[in-house]
């Protein structure tokens, strides 16, 4: 516990980007979504944010969510981040999942299932296909219902009733996605016979754990940042 809070006091715009990433590897997935390429030499977080026109408070907010499990932003920290930037980050995360992470896992899965009896392999690939559909549906719901609603509140127009999001559904969907991913890893880890594609399976599981971790952080961004942000804006409107 104390290590984490020590780190968060170090994690500042002055810190070297390379140091931050060496310490917290999961930040590596965040950079391309913000358009910060690798090969940045000794530059600090602040310098790189300025160079690539990324909001520094946003970068800090995302990094804290990734590095600190019990991080909850203060109202002040939230207000420093332009909502449009947060939404843009979330949308590019969705894109990253669908265009990079999932195809990568699928590639492993196909090789892995290849030597198996058709009747088992079809079962697992169908289960995976369902999971993928579930994920796509969830992202679509966010991008077509929730985010437009937010943009509406932001532009201070009257939000239409139909666009009102359901906080509970939101939470529930995140839990479901994580549960399904977890179920799939357990199936692959525990119940597929030992002789089936051992090396491919390790690779696939490592990818799945990384994805699962990233999606948990993504859900935290939405549950701990987006939802409080909506509440903040809604309460302001009602004043």
């Amino acid at each position, binding site marked *: 516990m104390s290590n984490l809070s020590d780190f968060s006091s170090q994690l500042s715009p002055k810190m070297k980007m390379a140091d931050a990433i060496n310490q917290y590897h999961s930040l590596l997935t965040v950079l391309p979504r913000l358009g910060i390429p690798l090969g940045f030499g000794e530059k600090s977080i602040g310098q790189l944010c300025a160079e690539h026109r990324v909001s520094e408070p946003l970068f800090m907010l995302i990094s804290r969510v990734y590095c600190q499990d*019990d991080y909850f932003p203060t109202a002040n920290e939230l207000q420093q981040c332009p909502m449009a930037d947060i939404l843009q980050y979330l949308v590019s995360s969705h894109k990253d999942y669908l265009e990079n992470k999932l195809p990568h896992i699928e590639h492993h899965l196909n090789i892995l299932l290849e030597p198996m009896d058709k009747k088992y392999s079809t079962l697992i690939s169908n289960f995976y296909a369902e999971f993928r559909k579930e994920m796509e549906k969830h992202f679509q719901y966010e991008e077509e219902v929730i985010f437009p609603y937010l943009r509406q509140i932001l532009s201070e127009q009257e939000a239409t009733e139909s666009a009102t999001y359901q906080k509970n559904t939101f939470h529930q969907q995140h839990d479901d996605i994580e549960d399904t991913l977890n179920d*799939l890893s357990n199936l692959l880890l525990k119940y597929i016979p030992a002789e089936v594609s051992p090396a491919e399976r390790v690779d696939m599981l490592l990818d799945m754990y990384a994805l699962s971790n990233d999606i948990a952080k993504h859900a*935290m961004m939405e549950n701990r940042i987006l939802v409080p942000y909506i509440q903040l804006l809604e309460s302001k409107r009602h004043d």
Partner: protein
Amino acid sequence: MTKIAIAEPSSMLRIGLEQLLRELPDAEVVFSTDNLNALYARISALRPDILIVNPLLFDYAKRATLRAEFDQLPNLRLVGLVTAYIESQHQRQFAGIIELNDDFQRIKSTLNQVCNTLQTDNEDPDTAPLSDREKDVLICLSKGLKNNEIADQLNISVHTVITHRKNIVRKTGIKSVAALTVYAILNNLIEEKDII
């Protein structure tokens, strides 16, 4: 080793309690917070055996159904840390109660009692394979039967069905019926044609 988590708004109390519990040889405080959100965020990953929680952290309306907040952790034992008057029907949700002026001896015996109930519940460890009855329930689940239909077919109560289901999830680590069906087929418990 018994894993204990603490949720108490007063840092003085929380840190004091942590200090006391450190003297228990077979217990470990794995998490301590003054904040419900942080608790919710961490608790499923940490899986403590006992949560010592001040009911005042919950809104009055939620206090009566506080146990339900932790439904996804059926093996978690709740111990109430009572610092103000709490209605007796709310107190009944706790496996034990620690009061502000309890001495260490008393706290120890409360926790010991709660631990004993833990052990009797855990007779069937996670590492045991599914029992025949659990397999029966799993087969019914894969065929798309609901709890009450399974109860009828196997001649057991719905409550027992639910207990078997919890054990299946605990042992396999698999939650969804869809994935459990895949499990059942992989383990040749059912044939693919049996699924609707």
